């Protein structure tokens, strides 16, 4: 990653979108102490460290953030959120950056697409194979009840998730 920040590509809307949500409204209070990065189990692998992400959000550097690897390396362990002395909910903010990256078609990891497909088709994130259904019976566990998937399909159709399914 280029370490000189290019401030000619500032995206004001990006910052405003993130701080408007109830999970992003504490972003402006970050004072760069670095507690998030020192608490993160993945930071050493990240191309943009957690505390750098927050500063880059504040600078409106959207392009670098939506394209970085780090947002997909986050293990969502919430250690940064827990320890942040300024109440920044970085884990959830990272999920929002993923959301922006996906809706702009920048990166769609196959597992995300598959999860959305399972959700749409079965109402569950993990579709049940015939083998697994058989195993439940063997163990005398109640069968998996049928889910009325209509409501779930409706929800997916109403949100951006539908774009990931190849425009159903």
């Amino acid at each position, binding site marked *: 990653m280029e370490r000189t920040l290019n401030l000619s590509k500032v995206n004001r809307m990006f910052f405003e979108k993130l701080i408007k*949500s*109830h*999970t992003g409204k504490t972003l402006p209070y970050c004072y760069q102490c670095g507690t998030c990065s020192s608490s993160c*189990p*993945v930071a050493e*692998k990240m191309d943009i460290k957690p505390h750098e992400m927050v500063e880059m959000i504040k600078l409106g550097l959207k392009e670098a953030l939506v394209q970085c690897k780090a947002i*997909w*390396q*986050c*293990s*969502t*362990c*919430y*250690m940064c*959120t*827990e320890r942040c002395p300024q109440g920044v*909910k970085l*884990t*959830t903010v990272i*999920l*929002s950056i*993923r*959301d922006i990256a*996906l809706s702009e078609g920048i990166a769609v*990891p196959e*597992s*995300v697409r598959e*999860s*959305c497909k399972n*959700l749409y088709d079965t*109402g*569950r*994130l*993990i*579709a*049940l194979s015939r083998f*697994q259904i058989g*195993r*439940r019976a063997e*163990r005398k*566990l*109640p069968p*998996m*009840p*049928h*889910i*009325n*998937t*209509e*409501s*779930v399909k*409706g*929800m*997916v159709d*109403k*949100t*951006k*998730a539908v774009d*990931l399914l190849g425009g159903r």
Partner: protein
Amino acid sequence: MRYGYYAGCYVLARMLQYDLSARNIMKKLNVKIIDMSDAPCCGPAIIKSVDYRLASALSAQILAMTEKRGLGTIVTLCPECFSSFIKVNIGFEEDTEFKKEVNDILSSTAGLNYGGGVEVKHLLQVVYDDIGLKKLNEDYIVKKFRGLKAAVHPGCHFVRPSTSCYPDDPANPRMLDELVESLGIESLYWPLKLWCCGAPTLALDRDLSFELAGKKLISAKASGADCMVTLCPYCQAQFDKYQPMIEKKLDEKFGLPVVLFTQLLGLSMGLSPEEVGLNMNRASSNTILNFIE
């Protein structure tokens, strides 16, 4: 005690020993459950990555279904479901616009509306708070362990990010430790106890995921653990099911049994190894039976 029981997709499909041991201990503990397995996915992190409102609407639908069935509390096994539900409850309280947005999706797709009042509990809270360790030991425990040393892994989403809705101490969680200690098991200090197991990155970056899990297995083993104890189906899979693959990747041999807290509890309550699904664990969990008095 009467609760909605939501095991979650992962448990229902791939962690049957958790579903089985949980149902069997609840039966013994006279906890009445209404099965909520016909409710859809909770909208975990991977769905939140796609659209936070979609994920929240999924959670809200389950909570609204719970409410509609006249139940005040929903009990989960999976901390990912647990925290998804809590996030909806907190979001509804903090942000009326968010509440309206989610309810608009919910009413137009499922014909439901969620007010925000369903209490969310993990099964560990039912055992620890609602029954209590004292009553548990007096009335239900028939066998104890002796000489078994455990590295307890409370996982991430059961303790973080802490809010008033979270039951345990985020910096020094004790609930799971106290439960296993009450069964005669020694809960060890181990350095990486609070670290993430790596499961959430499994589908995105397998090497990274196994590296995180590997560090924890090394830490647990080095601390002298005879076994690891989990409360999350994803953590359980990470340390147990994938242990052989992690061993191969790191060129290390752990051979460390990894058990769910419901399995230990069930055994102590007199259930058979089959009734807690011990034979469905991968990493030679049967060795823990040698430690039962």
